[in-house]
């Protein structure tokens, strides 16, 4: 395929419908000849917890996920079977982590899968610690390690994945590392709240505070509480949300600002798709009355209808109707299915699911999901988000689940 510029260049900004961005972004396809058929309906998907069973398509996606994880552990990130796109290396951790969070929901849906889920939760911890997942922090010259300061965009996810594994399995294999990281984060929360330009939370890069990245650290504290009987969510996460509400969001709608800069106490009052698709999901437990309205506003302003209204895409900017081809800017739609699950929006969930099936040609072959219209690197990266989007249960449900009973072999 060619783009509309005279020469194809690596970072071409062309948003012409024929651009091909292999494994770099969500596909910018928004023209479809037909309406994609769902592999599992929204009704079936939302009933998984009550039915104690994954849908056929969720199971198929899980089977693909296991293949990807094993291929990566055995052959590395450049393995031949399920390679990861090196140009997207800085983003690998997000897909991996969100799929990991989905394992909590999978465990609730079908506790009989406990051993298998714990096995892959453990494998995810191993991969999350592997150098390519975090080394851009060192390569870019921020520090000689990715966890001692800032970088919540990595260490928040690492912290959460430690917690997922320990919550599911009861294993204390990584407890020392988990505790070390928790202590670092708590110290930073406290130090940042009283520094010269105080704020609640942790920066990603210097002077860059992203509400969606902080949401991961916040929920991670809740998971830690569930394991250790502490109150870190109360002492820190709630204060972080109050800060986000006050300085990094539109108080009228609850929608999140793009970012905040502590040096100048400056929230950037721009509402974007990627930030909210992720952030509204994980922050829901902190102010449900407001954020439920925020969700509806978000879908109304940022959801773009495709396939004669049967599919939905998440735009990056409300005022512009095109798909975004920038890397991060195109990723809002990745978080869309899980977002719809969190807010119990069956209709939107189905529409987002149709978008992915239509773009990537997802089919089930011998019980495994395959992306027939995508390169291997697309399949490797994007499937994580789709599995999360299929299985995710609302956070309040996850946090009120009887995890002790689960570990002991029972069910809530």
């Amino acid at each position, binding site marked *: 395929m060619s783009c509309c510029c005279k020469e194809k260049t690596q970072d071409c*900004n062309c948003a012409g419908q024929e651009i091909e961005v292999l494994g770099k972004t969500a596909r910018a396809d928004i023209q479809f000849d037909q309406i994609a058929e769902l592999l599992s309906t929204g009704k079936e998907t939302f009933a998984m917890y009550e039915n104690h069973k994954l849908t056929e398509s969720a199971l198929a996606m899980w089977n693909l996920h296991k293949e990807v994880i094993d291929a990566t552990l055995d052959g590395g990130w450049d393995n031949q079977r399920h390679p990861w796109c090196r140009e997207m290396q800085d983003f690998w951790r997000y897909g991996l982590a969100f799929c990991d969070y989905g394992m909590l929901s999978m465990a609730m849906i079908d506790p009989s899968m406990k051993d298998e889920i714990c096995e892959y939760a453990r494998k995810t911890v191993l991969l999350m610690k592997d150098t390519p997942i975090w080394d851009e922090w060192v390569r870019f010259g921020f520090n000689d390690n990715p966890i001692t300061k800032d970088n919540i965009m990595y260490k928040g996810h690492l912290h959460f994945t430690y917690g997922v594994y320990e919550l599911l399995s009861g294993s204390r294999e990584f407890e020392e590392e988990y505790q070390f990281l928790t202590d670092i984060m708590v110290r930073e929360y406290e130090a940042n709240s009283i520094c010269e330009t105080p704020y609640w939370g942790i920066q990603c890069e*210097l002077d860059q505070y992203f509400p969606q990245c902080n949401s991961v650290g916040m929920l991670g504290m809740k998971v830690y509480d569930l394991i250790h009987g502490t109150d870190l969510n109360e002492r820190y996460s709630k204060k972080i949300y109050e800060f986000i509400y006050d300085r990094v969001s539109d108080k009228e709608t609850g929608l999140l*600002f793009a970012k905040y800069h502590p040096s100048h106490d400056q929230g950037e009052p721009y*509402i974007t798709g990627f930030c909210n698709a992720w952030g509204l999901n994980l922050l829901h437990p902190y102010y449900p009355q407001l954020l439920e309205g925020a969700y509806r*506003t978000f879908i109304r302003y940022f959801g773009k209808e495709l396939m004669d209204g049967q599919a939905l895409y998440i735009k990056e900017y409300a005022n512009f109707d095109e798909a975004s081809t920038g890397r991060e800017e195109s990723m809002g739609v990745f978080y869309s299915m899980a977002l719809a699950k969190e807010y119990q929006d069956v209709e939107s969930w189905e529409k987002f699911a149709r978008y992915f099936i239509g773009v990537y040609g997802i089919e089930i072959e011998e019980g495994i999901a395959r992306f027939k219209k995508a390169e291997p690197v697309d399949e490797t990266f994007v499937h994580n988000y789709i599995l999360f989007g299929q299985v995710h249960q609302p956070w309040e449900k996850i946090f009120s689940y009887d995890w002790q009973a689960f570990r002991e072999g029972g069910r809530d």
Partner: protein
Amino acid sequence: MEKPNFDHPLSVTAEEIWQMEETREFPIDIESHYKGLLNMMDVLYYRNGNSFYPEIKTRHAAYFLALAMPSFAIIDPCRTREMKYNLHVASLVIESDNLSKQLAVYDAPSIRRLEVFVILALYKLVSEKTINDERFHAYAEEVYGRIVENGRSAQNVFAYDTIEGTYEAYPNLAALLAFRIHDRCFGTDYCGCIEDTLLTFIREKLLDEETGLFLEFYKTGSLGIKGEHLSRSASWSGREQTAACNALAIAFMNYFDEAASERAWKAFKEKFTDQQLHVTAEELQDAETSSYVSQLTPIAQGLYGSLLAAKEMGDRDYFEKLQRHILTVAEPDQREGKIFFDALGNEQKLHGDFLTVARVHVGWKKILEHNWEDYYDFDYDKVR
């Protein structure tokens, strides 16, 4: 939050551009353009200068965008806090070693120093914060020190050099602006020491008596060796009078010498209008040649610089003529929340920043004489 609006006209007339100061609002194409460029600059900052675009061009792109920031804040005071942060970031981005390339021919450390100095000056103008004060002082001393060193050397030129032994009007005028701001903010007297000297040098060596236009450069043949015995008679002024050089010089001279600028501007229009209005997209796409002060090709620097000069001179008719031409050949398209200039290829990133400052610039007099203190606390009033 503003409701979505899919109406995206381009602001082609001068009235639409000048109206911004009255309505205190940016038309959507300016807004989109700004957002796209700002995103680039922010990413540069938080990726520690790691850029997909050539390093030195990136640095200059950040600089020209930053020049526009005070104007943004004057037009919409509720953006003051945002512009403070942006200027702060720009100063760090330009300073980043990752955006320097020692082996590159057009990477002039003195221009990089100057650009940081100017942006720190603009930061101090719009901000009550002291976080950059030390850096600002250090750069003021460095630039001033270089001027004095050049003067005391065998070159005997009390002026700021672009590269060793080469002196141009625009960098010296930009330095003067920054010194004015430093003096205003800190009660120093750099301008008392150096302004007359620099302006005299420019008038004597870099202005053509006959045409009133700026000359390309003044060169001394300095070999960079301290204590060399230069032949004073062997220094020379480059007699060529280009749009590229004059546009930037006029845009920055106007604050210091309106009469000289008016004269030069009149001559500029007589000599260069036809050329400007026939610049093609192919010529703008060219990335082979470059410039120490902008990284643009001479044709591009001349064209966008003319737009900036027209804005500075308050010449609405000329501005509109140029803007219409630029927006025609560049094939702007608003999509994905930004403007792409489809006819400019990869060079659109750098061109875009220059275009922004040219369209938004409210004039140096307004910028330097604005009551910034009254607006320090102003923050956003609208969520976009």
